């Protein structure tokens, strides 16, 4: 659903307490930039601003509108290069523009705006008014976007402290290992898709043949950062389920009770996917 400003309240007189009038003026200009002002409010804005040599205030507001939208759309281009390749620059640009118009940026960090793109794509695919050829030919696109977002997020995620081997050994020694809850790295994202998105993503990044969508039965992927670089790994159904259960906060004892092969844990720690532990509440 497109979220728009409400019709701005009347601008208080110049003598009113400054923040109130300043805020009202800012809302008025912001709504004009959003292109959501009714005609009478646009006229009100024109009464309080001038465009200088740009001519009308509307021309000045259009400069800000265009620049603001381009900055936000460019952020999507940076995070979703493979989606852009798949769609083509023109179609991607259109979708990015529609996304930034529909999804206001809620943070000074443009990456947070980029997070709106995968769910926007998912809604767009389900929208009967959306472009049907794209929607029907690229059912994997929202998952591909989720993969690209996870890849980008892994690049900037907070660093983890090294695995506390001594602390873990001490817990094992006192027979408390079962009560420990393991913690995944902060760069780790678990991503399941019914489409072979890993192969699609990899072929585009490596500029390989992308004319055919590879056959496959879907992917279970782990995205993380290793040695400062984001990595994407395909994992087995069992390993994925184990990681998801750990992410849900289950203790090692609970993992054992559910039949997971806990001997896998050593490898996951070595790979940097499991980075820490804490004592589970009983």
């Amino acid at each position: 659903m497109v979220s728009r400003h409400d019709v701005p309240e009347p601008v208080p007189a110049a003598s009113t307490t400054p923040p109130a009038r300043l805020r009202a003026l800012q809302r008025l200009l912001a709504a004009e930039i959003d292109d959501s002002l009714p005609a009478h409010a646009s006229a009100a804005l024109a009464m309080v601003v001038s465009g200088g040599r740009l001519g009308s205030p509307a021309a000045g507001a259009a400069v800000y509108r265009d620049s603001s939208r381009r900055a936000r759309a460019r952020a999507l281009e940076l995070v979703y290069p493979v989606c852009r390749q798949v769609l083509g620059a023109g179609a991607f640009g259109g979708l990015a523009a529609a996304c930034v118009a529909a999804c206001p940026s809620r943070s000074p960090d443009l990456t947070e705006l980029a997070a709106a793109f995968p769910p926007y794509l998912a809604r767009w695919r389900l929208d009967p008014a959306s472009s049907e050829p794209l929607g029907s030919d690229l059912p994997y696109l929202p998952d591909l976007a989720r993969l690209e977002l996870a890849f980008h997020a892994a690049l900037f995620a907070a660093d983890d402290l090294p695995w506390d081997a001594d602390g873990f050994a001490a817990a094992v020694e006192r027979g408390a290992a079962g009560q420990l809850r393991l913690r995944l790295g902060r760069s780790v994202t678990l991503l399941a898709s019914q489409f072979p998105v890993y192969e699609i993503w990899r072929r585009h990044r490596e500029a390989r043949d992308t004319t055919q969508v590879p056959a496959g039965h879907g992917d279970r992927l782990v995205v993380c950062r290793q040695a400062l670089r984001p990595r994407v790994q395909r994992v087995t159904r069992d390993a994925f389920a184990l990681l998801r259960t750990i992410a849900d906060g289950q203790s090692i004892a609970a993992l054992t009770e559910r039949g997971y092969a806990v001997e896998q844990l050593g490898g996951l720690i070595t790979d940097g996917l499991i980075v820490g532990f804490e004592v589970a509440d009983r």
Partner: protein
Amino acid sequence: MAPADRFRHGVAAGPARQLPAGAGIGLRHCHIDAVLLERPSIPWLELLADNHLADGGATLVQVDALARHYPLTLHCVGMNLAGTDPLDPDYLRRVDDLRRRSAAAWVSDHLCFTAIDGRHYHELLPFPYTESTLCHVAARVQRVQERLGMPLAVENVSSYLRFRESALTEAEFLAELSARTDCGLLLDVNNLYVNQANHGDDLDAALAALPPWRVQELHLAGFAQRDGWLLDAHAAPVAAPVWALYERVQRWLAAAGVGAVPTLIEWDNDIPELGTLRAEAARADAIAARASAVTAAVL
């Protein structure tokens, strides 16, 4: 310490570094690897802080490496200094973390609002310059400075709209803001020129209003032309009339007894080879030296 000198470095809680006077470059992602590999002779670098507000990973490792080899400053676009939403504590924390990590000589942002009602426009939006808005912005600048533990440098912006009720020019507003808050000024020469072209601003009046001893940094960039008006596009070389204005600004600073002010070449779109940026910086250095020599001879 003379008033002009105290603004050449941050009065920081952390170990902020002093800047050399030569022209620096606004370093963008496309040049970071080359700069770290080749370590070209550039007096200082400015990072667009918003591009480096990572929680971890390679970006911060790059910042660490850059800080080992170059004096740095941080330039922000998201403080929303003239906004009416509350200041964003998380954003300021991240800027402050980066400031400490990079030992930045100072931090700057723009005289504008960027967000309202929680919606961010990622654009430098204008507001009316009045006594009442001055009180409001001054209070916010003070709070930012307290959070960062150092004076902020506030930059004049290009504008495409003006509020009719403004009782002050932007220059008068900045002068009074710096007097009330002790903030420094980042004087963007291209923005001065763009506003003269778009709004007929009086450059003599602007320079007469601004306190030269508050000017902490100068910015130079290229504009784009659209149907008889100018856009602050940062996508082209510095234009001839902006170079001319830059020389005039340098003479104005020298005549006021202000020592060399660090100048920065900004280029954010269609970014050229590093050599092109360095050539622009060398030209800025030559003009600054000439202006200083001419002024010294006259005085």
